[in-house]
C-alpha cells in the first residue's frame, strides 16, 4: 500500500483482510519465535490482540525488573509457556548495606505460584531476594528434572542443605549454578561433593564471594566428572590446594576466587599450572610475588579481576602491559593514573572497565592510588571500544568528560563517583563536561554521576535531562542546587525508567512534581533529601498504579548496624521508594516502612 497512510477505517479493513485470508497462526508463531529482543517483543505485542496472544504464547524469557510491580499469578496468566524467568528484588542500595534484611523481596510467592504451573520453565534467576531452603525445595520438587539454570544473585536466607537437594535432584539437567555474593548458611561441604558426583553436564559453577568451605578433593571430582566445565568461581581455598584440580580441568576457560594464604611459603605456588584455555582469571589476595602465575597466559587473557588482590600500582602497570587482548578489567583505584595510561596503551580492545574504591584508612593507604582526569583522558583516547565504564575518581575535569564523549562512541553504561577525600577538585562544576559526554555518547542507556556540593549546578542538571537521549537508568548523587534544577532535569527525561537519587537538596514537593513529569518512569528510589516527618508532599505524585513507600527519618533506625567492620550504616535519612505496580500495596512491608499510596 503506497502513498499516504490509510485512514483509520481503511486500516482496520486492511488488517481484517489479512486475517481473513489467513496469515496462518502457525506462520505467525514461527515468525515471532525468532524475535528475541524484549523491546521488539513489547512492540509486537501491542500491534493487535492476535499478536498479543501469540507473543504471550511464544515468549521464552521475561525479566521482572521489580518483584512488586506485578503479581506472579498475572505473569503466569499472560506467559504460561515461559522457559526462563528473572526477578529482581531489593533496591540496589542493598549492595551498600542501606537496606535492612527484613525489608522484603521474598522469593516464596514466585516459587510457590510459578514453579509448578510454568511447565516449560528451565531457568530461574533471582537477584537481591530472600530465598529460603523451603523455596528451593519447592522449586526442585516442581522443576528439578528439567532445571538447567539456577542463578541466585546476591540472595540470602538459604543454606547448603538446599544446595544438596539441588545437587541431587537436578542431576541430569543442571548446566549453570550461580550463587555469587549470596549469604548462605554453611552446614557442611557435602553439597559440593553431591554436585560433583551427580551432575555431569555442569558448565558453570559460581560461588564467588560466598564464605562456603571448600574441600579441594571435591573440586577434583568435579573436574573429573564434568568434562564440560568451562567456568568456575569459588570461595576462599588456598591456591596450592588446587594444583590437582587445574591439572584435570583441561577445558577450563574461566577461574576466579581461591586465595593466597597468609602463611606465605613461596615455593608451594611454584607448581601451580593453570589450564591452557584459561582466558578469564581472578585470584584473591594475590600479591606481587604471585603475579607471575598469570604471565604464561597473559597474552590471551580476556577478563581479569584484580579487585581483591594486594597488587601495587607498579604491579598493575607490569601486569597489564602484558595483556593486550583484555576485554574486561576490574581493579581498585590503586591502579592509579599510571596504570590507566598502561591500559590505554595496551588494551585496545577493552570493552568493560571497573575501578572500585580502595581503602581510605591512612595506615592502609595505597600511596600511588587514585584515579583522576589524567587517567580518564588517556583511557578515552586509547580505548575506543569501551562500552562500560564504572569508576571511583579522586579528581576530575570537564575536559576528561568531554574526551569520553568524543572518543567512546560505543559507551552504553557510564558511572562515575567523585570521592570525598581531596578537598579541592581541579575543575568544578562539571556542567559542560557532562553535557558534552551525553551529547557524544549517543548509545548511553545507563548513567551514574555522584559528585559533591558545587559539583553540578542547576544548569548542569538541566543538561542531563536535555541530553538524556535513550538513558533508562540513572543514579544521581549530590547534584544540583535548588528544586528548579530537578524540575528542569525531569522535563527532559523522556526515556528514563529507573531513577536513584542520593544526598540531594530537593524538597519533597519538588521530588513529587519531578516524578510526574517523566513519562517512562516506573521506579524511583531516594535517600537523603529535604524530607518531612510524614512524607506528606509526596502525595502530590499519587496516581493509580503508582505505589509510594516512605521510610521516615529517625534516630531510632540508628540502632540497626549493617556493616561488619563496626562502621554503623546508620540509616537515619528518610528513604522514598515509588514504583509502578499492578498489584496494589504490598503485604510484607516491615514496620519502619510507611505505605503512603495506596495507604
Amino acid at each position, binding site marked *: 500500500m503506497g502513498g499516504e497512510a490509510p485512514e483509520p477505517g481503511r486500516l482496520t479493513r486492511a488488517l481484517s483482510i489479512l486475517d481473513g485470508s489467513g496469515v496462518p497462526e502457525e506462520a505467525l508463531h514461527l515468525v515471532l519465535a525468532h524475535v528475541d529482543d524484549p523491546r521488539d517483543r513489547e512492540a509486537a505485542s501491542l500491534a493487535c490482540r492476535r499478536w498479543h496472544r501469540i507473543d504471550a504464547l511464544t515468549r521464552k524469557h521475561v525479566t521482572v525488573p521489580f518483584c512488586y510491580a506485578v503479581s506472579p499469578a498475572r505473569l503466569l496468566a499472560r506467559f504460561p509457556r515461559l522457559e526462563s524467568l528473572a526477578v529482581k528484588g531489593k533496591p540496589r542500595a542493598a549492595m551498600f548495606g542501606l537496606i535492612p534484611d527484613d525489608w522484603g523481596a521474598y522469593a516464596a510467592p514466585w516459587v510457590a505460584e510459578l514453579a509448578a504451573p510454568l511447565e516449560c520453565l528451565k531457568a530461574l534467576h533471582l537477584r537481591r531476594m530472600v530465598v529460603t531452603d523451603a523455596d528451593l525445595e519447592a522449586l526442585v520438587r516442581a522443576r528439578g528434572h528439567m532445571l538447567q539454570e539456577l542463578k541466585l544473585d546476591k540472595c540470602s536466607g538459604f543454606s547448603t542443605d538446599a544446595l544438596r537437594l539441588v545437587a541431587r535432584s537436578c542431576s541430569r539437567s543442571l548446566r549453570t549454578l550461580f550463587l555469587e555474593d549470596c549469604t548462605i548458611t554453611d552446614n557442611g561441604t557435602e553439597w559440593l561433593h553431591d554436585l560433583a558426583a551427580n551432575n555431569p553436564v555442569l558448565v558453570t559453577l559460581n560461588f564467588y564471594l560466598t564464605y562456603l568451605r571448600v574441600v579441594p578433593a571435591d573440586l577434583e571430582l568435579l573436574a573429573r566428572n564434568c568434562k564440560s566445565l568451562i567456568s568456575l568461581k569459588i570461595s576462599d581455598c588456598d591456591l596450592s590446594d588446587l594444583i590437582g584440580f587445574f591439572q584435570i580441568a583441561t577445558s577450563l576457560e574461566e577461574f576466579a576466587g581461591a586465595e593466597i594464604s597468609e602463611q606465605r611459603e613461596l615455593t608451594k605456588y611454584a607448581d601451580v599450572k593453570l589450564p591452557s584455555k584459561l582466558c578469564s582469571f581472578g585470584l584473591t589476595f594475590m600479591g*606481587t610475588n604471585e603475579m607471575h602465575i598469570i604471565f604464561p597466559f597473559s597474552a590471551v587473557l580476556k577478563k581479569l579481576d584484580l579487585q581483591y588482590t594486594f597488587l601495587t600500582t607498579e604491579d598493575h602497570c607490569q601486569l597489564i602491559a602484558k595483556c593486550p587482548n583484555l576485554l574486561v578489567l576490574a581493579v581498585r583505584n590503586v591502579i592509579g593514573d599510571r596504570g590507566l595510561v598502561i591500559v590505554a596503551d595496551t588494551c585496545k580492545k577493552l570493552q568493560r572497565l571497573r575501578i572500585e574504591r580502595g581503602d581510605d584508612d591512612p595506615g592502609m593507604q595505597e600511596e600511588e592510588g587514585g584515579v583522576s582526569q589524567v587517567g580518564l583522558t588517556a583511557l578515552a583516547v586509547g580505548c575506543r571500544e569501551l562500552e562500560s565504564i564504572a569508576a571511583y575518581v579522586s579528581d576530575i575535569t570537564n575536559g576528561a568528560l568531554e574526551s569520553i564523549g568524543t572518543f567512546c562512541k560505543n559507551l552504553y553504561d557510564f558511572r562515575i563517583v567523585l570521592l570525598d577525600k581531596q578537598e579541592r577538585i581541579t575543575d568544578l562544576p562539571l556542567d559542560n563536561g557532562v553535557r558534552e559526554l551525553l551529547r557524544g555518547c549517543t548509545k548511553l542507556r545507563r548513567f551514574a554521576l555522584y559528585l559533591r556540593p558545587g559539583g553540578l549546578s542547576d544548569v548542569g542538571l538541566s543538561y542531563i535531562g536535555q541530553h538524556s537521549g535513550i538513558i533508562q537508568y540513572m543514579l544521581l548523587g549530590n547534584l544540583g542546587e535548588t528544586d528548579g534544577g530537578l524540575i528542569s532535569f525531569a522535563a527532559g527525561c523522556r526515556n528514563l525508567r529507573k531513577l536513584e537519587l542520593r544526598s540531594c537538596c530537593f524538597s519533597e514537593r519538588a521530588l513529587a512534581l519531578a516524578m510526574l513529569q517523566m513519562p517512562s518512569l516506573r521506579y524511583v528510589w531516594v535517600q537523603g533529601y529535604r524530607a518531612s516527618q510524614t512524607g506528606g508532599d509526596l502525595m502530590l505524585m499519587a496516581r493509580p498504579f503508582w505505589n509510594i513507600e516512605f521510610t521516615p527519618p529517625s534516630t531510632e533506625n540508628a540502632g540497626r548496624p549493617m556493616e561488619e567492620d563496626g562502621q554503623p550504616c546508620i540509616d537515619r535519612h528518610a528513604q522514598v521508594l515509588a514504583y509502578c505496580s499492578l498489584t496494589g500495596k504490598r503485604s510484607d512491608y516491615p514496620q519502619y516502612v510507611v505505605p503512603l499510596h495506596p495507604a
Partner: protein
Amino acid sequence: MPPMVTATTDSAARRFAVACGVLSRLVKAAGPVPMPMPMSAYGAAARVGALQGPDGPPADGAQQLTIFYGGRVVVLDGCTPAGAAELIRYAAAAATPPAAAAATALVDIPIARKASLQRFLSKRKDRSVTALEGPPYSRPEEAAPPPPAKKRKTEASSWLALGSLGDMHAQRSIA
C-alpha cells in the same frame, strides 16, 4: 502588616515576581484545590484582603487579595484560600536562610561502600596486623624489591632476599 521592607535586592524582587506568577497562575486555574488553609503556621507577612464583593463572599471562598511590597501594590480578585496559602508559603520561604545552607547541611551522607569490597578491605586490615605482629611474613609490597619512590621501609634486609626468590620464580615460569 505589610511585609518587612529590607534593602531591596535583585533576588528578593525576583522571588516576589515568581510568587506573583504562581499566584496569578493559581487564580487562572479552574476550581479550588481542596487543601486547608494553614494561615497561622506562616506568621503571615502579607495581609489577605478581606474586602468582599457586592454579592458577599463566593461559594469557593475566593476573595480579593491585596499585597503591599516595596512601594508597589498588587490586587488580585478571586484568590482562593489555597492560593493565598501558597503565596504565603513562598514569602515565608524567601525569609528563611538560602537553600545553599540547607544543601550543605544535607551532605553528611558519606558515600556508601559496597559490602563485598568492604569485607575484602577488612580482611586485608586483619592480615596486615598479624603480619606486623607475627613471625616473619611481610606484606607483599615489602617483599618485592622496593621501587625508588616507595616510602615504606622494609622490616629487615632479609626481605630483599625473599624478594629475589620471587623474581627467580617468575623467570622459571616464563621459561
